């Protein structure tokens, strides 16, 4: 693998860039691998990477039905934060965030991690109390956050309307080292590093069946033929239910469309990420200059990767209210991804009823931020049989009622 650097670029510039290799090798399936990972999204690729890097397991294939990074990894709004409430969540998201800090250097690929800060606005008394609680929890979890007042909100993000007539901004939970990264680069960077370790990334290769023998996995059927393996990781996000069905068990996951949109690019006006949960919208500005906007999921199960317009409307309405200046910007493009939602809105990183099969799913609307941490933890689980980071995320927690609920607080005051 050619090392990337400014010098390499300069050298290549002098010979018309003819010397650049493929970022990842083209691969056809071998007969058998130690580990097969289904789904070359961020989570699948990161799982492979850390299997190789941390545990020396390199006879690995990553199978992707489309193009790598083409699922939610390439469709998300790239918010990275770890200011979660519950201990198990904070642990894995903070692990992830801290891995993001050095990921460009680790992968020798500029994934453009930009720790510009993330704020979650409090616009009701109830929200204030909720975020104060999170700040207290984060303090004990080793996650750097603070509850800040409206003046500080305005100072950090001058385009916010803090005194809207309907929901004035009362404060915010602020994570200064949260931010964004370039989503495609995360997938490509991991893919390149996996390929460099000798792993096979096989695109246009859909898994169509899972072969088992005596309760144990022995391989998969694919559109490129059968492939054997000792261990199998299912990391297919919105299509995890389909995979579980192939493996003969069920998962408490629903597939819903989550949409996002961007404006036309403008010169920089916003240097933080803002999430406004009372009104349901969030926004940041990409390095290209587009305002990147997202909101809530559609209300019905769906596999189409497109959603209904009224959700876009709701989101834009919320953000025009929060950032009046965007009223005269234009929506350039909207799209959707199919997110995998569990009952408690937390992921599943787990062994399964079938020996040798592992699942990594349920990241739902917020798993981009978790890619490095999830890969790290999943690799440990697969290599060693257990990981403190995945301990609480087993699929059996639903049977026990041991939820890790991040969507706390259903009710509002009397």
């Amino acid at each position, binding site marked *: 693998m050619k090392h990337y650097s400014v010098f390499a670029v300069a050298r290549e510039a002098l010979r018309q860039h003819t010397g650049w290799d493929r970022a990842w090798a083209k691969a056809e399936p071998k007969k058998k691998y130690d580990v097969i990972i289904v789904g070359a999204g961020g989570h699948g690729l990161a799982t492979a990477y850390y299997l190789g890097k941390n545990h020396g397991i390199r006879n690995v294939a990553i199978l992707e039905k489309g193009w790598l990074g083409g699922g939610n990894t390439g469709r998300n709004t790239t918010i990275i934060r770890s200011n979660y409430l519950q201990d198990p969540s904070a642990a894995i998201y903070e692990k992830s965030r801290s891995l993001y800090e050095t990921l460009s250097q680790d992968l020798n690929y500029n994934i*453009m991690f930009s720790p510009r800060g993330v704020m979650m606005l409090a616009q009701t008394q109830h929200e204030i109390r909720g975020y104060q609680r999170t700040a207290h929890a984060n303090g004990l979890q080793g996650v750097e956050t603070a509850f800040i007042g409206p003046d500080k909100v305005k100072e950090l993000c001058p385009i916010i309307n803090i005194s809207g007539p309907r929901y004035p901004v009362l404060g915010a939970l602020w994570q200064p080292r949260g931010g964004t990264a370039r989503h495609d680069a995360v997938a490509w960077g991991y893919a390149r590093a996996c390929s460099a370790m000798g792993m096979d990334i096989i695109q246009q290769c859909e898994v169509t069946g899972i072969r088992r023998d005596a309760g144990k996995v022995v391989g998969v059927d694919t559109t490129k033929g059968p492939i054997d393996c000792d261990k199998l990781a299912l990391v297919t996000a919105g299509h995890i239910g389909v995979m579980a069905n192939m493996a003969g068990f069920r998962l408490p996951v629903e597939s819903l469309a989550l949409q996002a949109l961007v404006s036309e690019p403008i010169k920089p006006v916003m240097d933080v990420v803002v999430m406004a949960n009372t009104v349901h919208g969030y926004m940041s500005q990409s390095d290209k200059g587009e305002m990147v906007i997202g909101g809530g999921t559609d209300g019905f199960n769906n596999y189409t990767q497109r959603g*209904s317009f009224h959700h876009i409307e709701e989101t834009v309405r919320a953000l025009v209210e929060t950032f009046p200046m965007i009223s005269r910007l234009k929506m350039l493009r909207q799209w959707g991804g199919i997110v995998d939602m569990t009952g408690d809105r937390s992921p599943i990183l787990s062994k399964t009823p079938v020996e040798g099969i592992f699942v990594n799913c349920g990241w739902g609307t917020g798993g981009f931020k978790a890619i490095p941490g999830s890969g790290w933890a999943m690799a440990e689980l697969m290599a060693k049989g257990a990981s403190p980071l995945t301990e609480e995320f087993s699929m059996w927690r639903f049977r026990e*009622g041991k939820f890790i609920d991040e969507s706390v607080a*259903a009710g509002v*005051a*009397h």
Partner: protein
Amino acid sequence: MSTRLAEGGRLIDRSQAVKFTFNGKHFKGFAGDTLASALLANDQMMVGRSFKYHRPRGVVAAGAEEPNALVNLGKGGTFEPNQRATTTEVFDGLAATSQNHWPSLEFDVGAINTYLARFLPAGFYYKMFIHPRPFWKYIYEPFIRQSAGLGKAPKDRDADTYEHFHAFVDVLVIGGGIAGLAAAREAGRAGARVMLIEQTADWGGRAVVDGVKLGGKDAGVWVKDTLQELETMPNVDLRRRTMGAGVYDHGYVLAYERLRDHVPEMDGPRHRLWRIRARRTITATGAIERPLSFAGNDVPGVLLASAVRDYLVNFGVSVGDRTVVVTNNDDAYRTALALHSHGLIVPAIVDARPQGGGELAAAAKAAGIRVANGMAVAVVKGGKRVTGVTLCLQAGEGAPLEEIACDCVAMSGGWSPVVHLWSHCGGKLSWDDDQAMFRPDAGRPPTGADGAPMVIAAGTANGHLATAGAVADGWAAGLAAAKAAGHAGKTGTAPKGEDAAAAAPLPVWLMPQGASYAKRSKAWLDFQNDVKVSDVQLAAQEGFESVEHAKRYTTLGMATDQGKLSNINGLATLSNALNVTIPQVGTTTFRPPYTPISMGAIAGVARDALFQPVRKTPIHDWHEANGADFEPVGQWRRPYAFPRKGESVHDAVMREVKNTRTNVGLLDASTLGKLVVTGPDAGRFLDMLYTNMISTLPVGKCRYGLMCNENGFLIDDGVVARIDEQTWLCHTTTGGAERIHGHMEDWLQCEWWDWKVYVANVTEQFAQIGVVGPKARDVLESLGGMDLSKEALPFMQWADGKIGEFDARVYRISFSGELSYEVAVPASQGRAFWDALLKAGEAHGIMPYGTECLHIMRAEKGFIMIGDETDGTVIPQDLNLGWAISKKKDDYLGKRAQERSHMTDPNRWKLVGLETLDGSVIPDGAYAIGDGVNANGQRNTQGRVTSTYFSPTLGKGIAMGLVLNGPDRMGEVIEFTKGKDVTVKARIVDQVFYDKAGEKQNA
């Protein structure tokens, strides 16, 4: 130079001059001009700078596909960046400035990037800026952000308004060219309700520019006749300046009407967003011409051949005096002929096809225009504007054969049908080898709710590039759509179009075919984002083989035109690099909107105070008039407290608590949810919904009930009153009313649909007022009426009657621990009743109180609050509410879940009271610290505070919290977080701080 001709221009009104400015320079145009045509008429060739290399950019197209001519428009509250000059109609006083340069358009420091271009190929930033680590955030990224972006950000509040309209039609026709007009007319004749929309200000599309013949008539005449007929049809709605933005599932189409962009002085909304439900949608959206990829194709003065023709015919503008036409198809000959007929010079038509063109080519030759077959442009000369072209053989590597001086190049690489709307909702495409284009695959259309095709592509948009086919196809589409929508009235016959016999186009994806790297790295695919042929080839070389990878790696097609000009050329380049066919590479996904639409239009009227409905109780006005400090609770705004002049909110709350505890307080509790549940099976239903037994509650009595979800978690609570044999009234939390109503309906409609139960949300039918405090009874009795004595109406009972003049339903329930009556009166009497109570209470020291006082009093009394003590993870058992869970019932929602191992774990966090040792208030959200750290290095915890207040009644901080095995640890002292490394000690105590025996509420 580019100039206005003395004559011609079918769309401009030369009698109406308009003045406008560009970068402060004063220009003149005519009514009917676009900003682009008016700029060209004033010889303003250069209009902007490209995104990455800051290259000089000129107008290249004449419509929505324009990637270059983007300007800042307006000032202050009407300022708007990234406006496309080609779709902006000029008006008097228009002020535009160019974008993405510093310090000026002519001299831009950023243009240095063009000299560094070879160091900045596709994807360079993934390979650089990796070290040292902090530099990305602090140095590289800010620099990149500053040089990216296009227009400036608006600063002021938008001065305009927007609105939404809904339409329900049989047939929606998108596109007012000849195919769309023919379709709309036939559908209209058949009797269907038709809406025909056209994105520009004019009908007729390309045919009228090209002057083709229809039914023996000039296209212009045919269009006029057709419009006349359409205008007389009452079932047809015609709208110009209305763009079909997106097609969604179930025949839902979004359209974007620009009402006032061209007449800013007019009153009314600026944009209108149409939400259209159409039985069938016809996309007659035409086609877009493709550029050709030759070196220097981005120099200002190189335009699409059709655009050169548009400016000439529509606006009387000649882009250049000497125009070289370069093409791979017959259509561009029309441009040459039009220029020639206007007396302009066409030094040569460079036709890449060795055999040349058909009838139009013959006409050009006959007119004396030189036609060079099998030739190509080797390179365009000029920097800020074209000065000439060098010709070479298309088949070769670009050895220069001759140079031709010219100031305009009109290029045509063929046409691509506009298939966006067809594709938005799943319509598939097929590759047409003969015409070298993707076209809708009629066999794989987007389907609607009925499983039938919901979109019909028509005309050029359906791949019929010639007049005859296009108009006949439009006619057939109109008929088919009307029929599918159930209309089969009498219709006419297909109009007949006439075409010159054309020679086949030759796919030319690179010019010349064997162009060197030097040429390929100067041959632009995406003009705005600066993506060149060499970039796509590099992407392929590096393994970005999927069209989506190549797009993302190079940013091809990601500019504000979303690749309308670049996509097909880009993927053809990719397919060549990969040595596979174009259909094997496939297209990227088409996503709405077709062209960008304003956020303001999407938000519509929902702004400021109208952002969300404000729900008001019948007493709201009194609260406002009396200085209430409001807090939003759901869509309600409830008084938090009633501070008096000079009093702080905190002091007001303290006063309200004290007064209610000693005298009497008044609470507007109208926002509490009130759901009437009635029917023969209502009791059985409520037994399933609540954890308590509700069916056995005697008429006239009240019971505090708990509701859980299937996971066993507490979701709502409230007092249930039995009204009669079959009827219960369920109180919910303020925020819970709609949610719980939905929850009930969900179970009734999906699971127990055969149960006879009816639920009505009557929250707003009543004003409900809490009269609370030791003197509550005195106040009510002083109004006269029903017997409210302890004996007649004991605690947890209700009664109907009269209080004074008012029809009242009185509940003796208490959320404060005081003697308390909650009185419901019809909403219309609410305000009068409130006033009467205030008056009657004067003598007893009555004062209204807000939500914060309510919270403190319930916390003093140890009552839980949904959303404080619960958070979606708490079961009633955690809150010591086991007494409210019926042991007699076989089942209720949540019962099974509460039997799961984690729920029955003896070591759970349970509710207790907390008292700080120093009397201070534990901060909101504080956690109780445990010993040591967990496996992930996080500090262990053993509980958390759920409600915490300063109690004016007790004169110290009190709290409730969930603590590990709390009720077994009375008296123990534990530590809560207070700030960074600061803690506060608190003792575990009983959660009831006030009137443990309950004497007061029972009084």
